[in-house]
């Protein structure tokens, strides 16, 4: 997914501000902790979000991402730490006085009001806006979310996707400094989800609002985000662009959480500045890594190889000593665009390989069940993590 890079060029996020140590963070979360009785939902989280970013908090259920979002919105108080928005401390600011708006997971549209009134609700709470101003802004935002013909309808007369756009419009019309989205695409079907993902990005670029999105769907995070923060058990485990998270995970958890991965435990036997070798009993061989890794010699490490980076061959390759293993194809899942092969190797481990269906092959050309195959991968493919 190269979207983050392409977007970073043409967007307000100039030169990736998170790389610039002098850049001012728009949203600063400093050592925030939230306890519910004995249970620590958010544990000492620190985070910087820059203006115009789409920042995704990604994690499974119960990892604290929703609690963090609610603290940003003002619905939960902080047990300790502080949150700054555009330099202002949000400690004692109630939700109705923050320049933050939220798009709820259930949309929370007011059932007794029309789409127009729903959207106008937020504007009516602001001082100094005349009726005409409000009407204009409502019409404009309806144009942007493409719901102009539905202005007089009530929420129960709309489809799920339309309701979602009303919720988005209602939050955006107030031109908040920060927009929080709680699982925005969760309730939509697949086709609609993809279309809406791109629409969301376009709208964000058009309006330049800073987004913080909470999701458990890594596909959503990868598509939408300029940066992703992976959370586990109340802590931020890794922050990076989608590419960095996917290609360079720092822990086993992150490697395993995003996409699928084949994890081989092993011992670091050769550790040089520009290459390394790992002896893995799980694999039954040597893993050669063509870049330097930071770890103590002889340490136990895990080498993660993504399924799409593994090649399946019918004949053994030239070098069978490293980055190579043979096994038997146990399962094949045909997904249309790719096929997933589960290959069982001698040590008993099952390796997952993804191959794109490039050519239409006949039955004897295609790899079938119970075939003995050779798996191989390039030295740049494994990512080594030590925790």
């Amino acid at each position, binding site marked *: 997914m190269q979207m983050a890079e392409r977007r970073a060029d043409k967007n307000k996020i100039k030169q990736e501000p998170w790389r610039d140590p002098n850049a001012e963070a728009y949203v600063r979360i400093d050592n925030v902790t939230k306890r519910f009785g004995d249970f620590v939902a958010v544990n000492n989280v620190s985070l910087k979000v820059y203006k115009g970013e789409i920042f995704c908090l990604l994690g499974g259920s119960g990892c604290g991402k929703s609690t963090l979002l609610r603290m940003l919105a003002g*619905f939960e108080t902080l047990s300790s730490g502080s949150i700054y928005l555009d330099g202002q401390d949000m400690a004692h600011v109630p939700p*109705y006085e923050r320049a933050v*708006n939220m798009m709820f997971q259930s949309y*929370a*549209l*007011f059932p007794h009001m029309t789409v127009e009134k729903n959207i106008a609700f*937020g504007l009516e709470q602001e001082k100094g806006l005349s009726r005409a101003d409000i009407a204009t802004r409502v019409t404009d935002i309806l144009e942007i979310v493409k719901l102009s013909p539905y202005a007089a309808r009530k929420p129960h007369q709309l489809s799920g996707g339309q309701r979602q756009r009303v919720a988005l419009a*209602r*939050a955006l019309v107030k031109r908040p400094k920060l927009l929080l989205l709680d699982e925005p695409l969760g309730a939509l079907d697949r086709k609609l989800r993809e279309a809406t993902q791109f629409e969301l990005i376009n709208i964000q670029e058009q309006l330049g609002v800073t987004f913080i999105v909470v999701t458990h769907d890594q596909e959503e995070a990868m598509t939408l985000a300029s940066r992703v923060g992976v959370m586990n058990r109340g802590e931020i485990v890794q922050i990076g662009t989608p590419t960095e998270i996917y290609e360079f995970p720092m822990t086993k958890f992150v490697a395993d959480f995003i996409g699928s991965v084949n994890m081989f435990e092993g011992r670091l036997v050769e550790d040089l500045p520009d290459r390394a070798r790992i002896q893995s009993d799980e694999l039954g061989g040597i893993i050669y890594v063509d870049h330097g890794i930071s770890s103590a010699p002889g340490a136990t490490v895990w080498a993660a190889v993504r399924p799409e980076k593994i090649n399946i061959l019918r004949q053994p390759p030239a070098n069978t000593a490293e980055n190579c293993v043979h096994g038997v194809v146990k399962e094949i899942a045909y997904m249309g665009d790719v096929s997933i092969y589960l290959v069982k190797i001698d040590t008993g481990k099952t390796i997952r390989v993804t191959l794109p269906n490039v050519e239409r092959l006949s039955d004897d050309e295609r790899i079938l069940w119970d075939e003995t195959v050779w798996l191989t991968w390039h030295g740049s493919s494994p990512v080594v993590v030590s925790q």
Partner: protein
Amino acid sequence: MSRAQPGRLGPLWTFFFRYGPPRWSEYVLRNLSGQRLVIAVPYIWLLVFFLVPFLIVLKISFAEFAPMGRPPYEPVFDWLEEGALQIKLLIHSYEYLFNEPLYVSSWIYSLKVAFFSTLLCLALGYPMAYAIARSQPSTRALLLLLVILPFWTSFLLRVYAWIGLLKTDGVINNVLMGMGLIEQPLAMMNTSFAVYIGIVYSYLPFMILPLYSNLEKHDLTLLEAAQDLGAGPIKSFLRVTLPLSLPGVVAGSLLVFIPAVGEYVIPSLLGRSDQLMIARLLADEFFLNRDWPKASAVAIAMLLLLVVPIMIFQHFQNRELQAQKK
């Protein structure tokens, strides 16, 4: 079609089924299902015990008063010797109702008492229903029990209890005089004040329960959304909770207003003797004057008067049901 099995129900049935006009058998087959039979039971009950008595009362209201008769009214439908049916409908009972000052002032007083009792019930009941709906689930059951508990005791006894509280040498006056807050006992019995207390006290659960039922179903994230959009707690309540609770308000209000108009016991025990509510007039007309036509006319007039609120109630109930179906 295996729903109706004519053979089982006897030769008469079979006869009608086989030799009756085709539409009859179709009709029978379609309608004699178990489902319809079950609905028929309460339907027939209501017909026999509500519609028929209503029609009888309606008939009597058009009759002429016969003081010495048993029953004390002239027959409305009379068969004459020639085989002709004589129908005599008099509307003078109704005329009397709407012209006699006693009745007119009683109508107005009854409506006034019912209306203000409803407002008081609303003012007291809404906060209570809201508090119960927002309470912890563990305490909620207890609070609801406390609201319903009075129904387990006799209504009459509860009204009598109020006499004991409100009378000149009753509990309230004794406490207040004992504490030195008043010198002379307050005259609370046999006043409109006492009637209001009695009605509000007795009908409060009828206001609380429908309101609670409505408020309990509210989606609280709507309030969060309202706050997120800039509305403070009070504004959120006024623009989100209150409009959504309107069906509950209407239901509760009508459940209080409609019976309160025809309230008999409370004004008789606690109320004024110089200003009577309409139900008392009806009872007096029936039992003391033995003027059945006039009493019947009062009953019919009361019903017609309340038809409009009842229709509003029905309309809102239907809307609730429709909304819930979605």
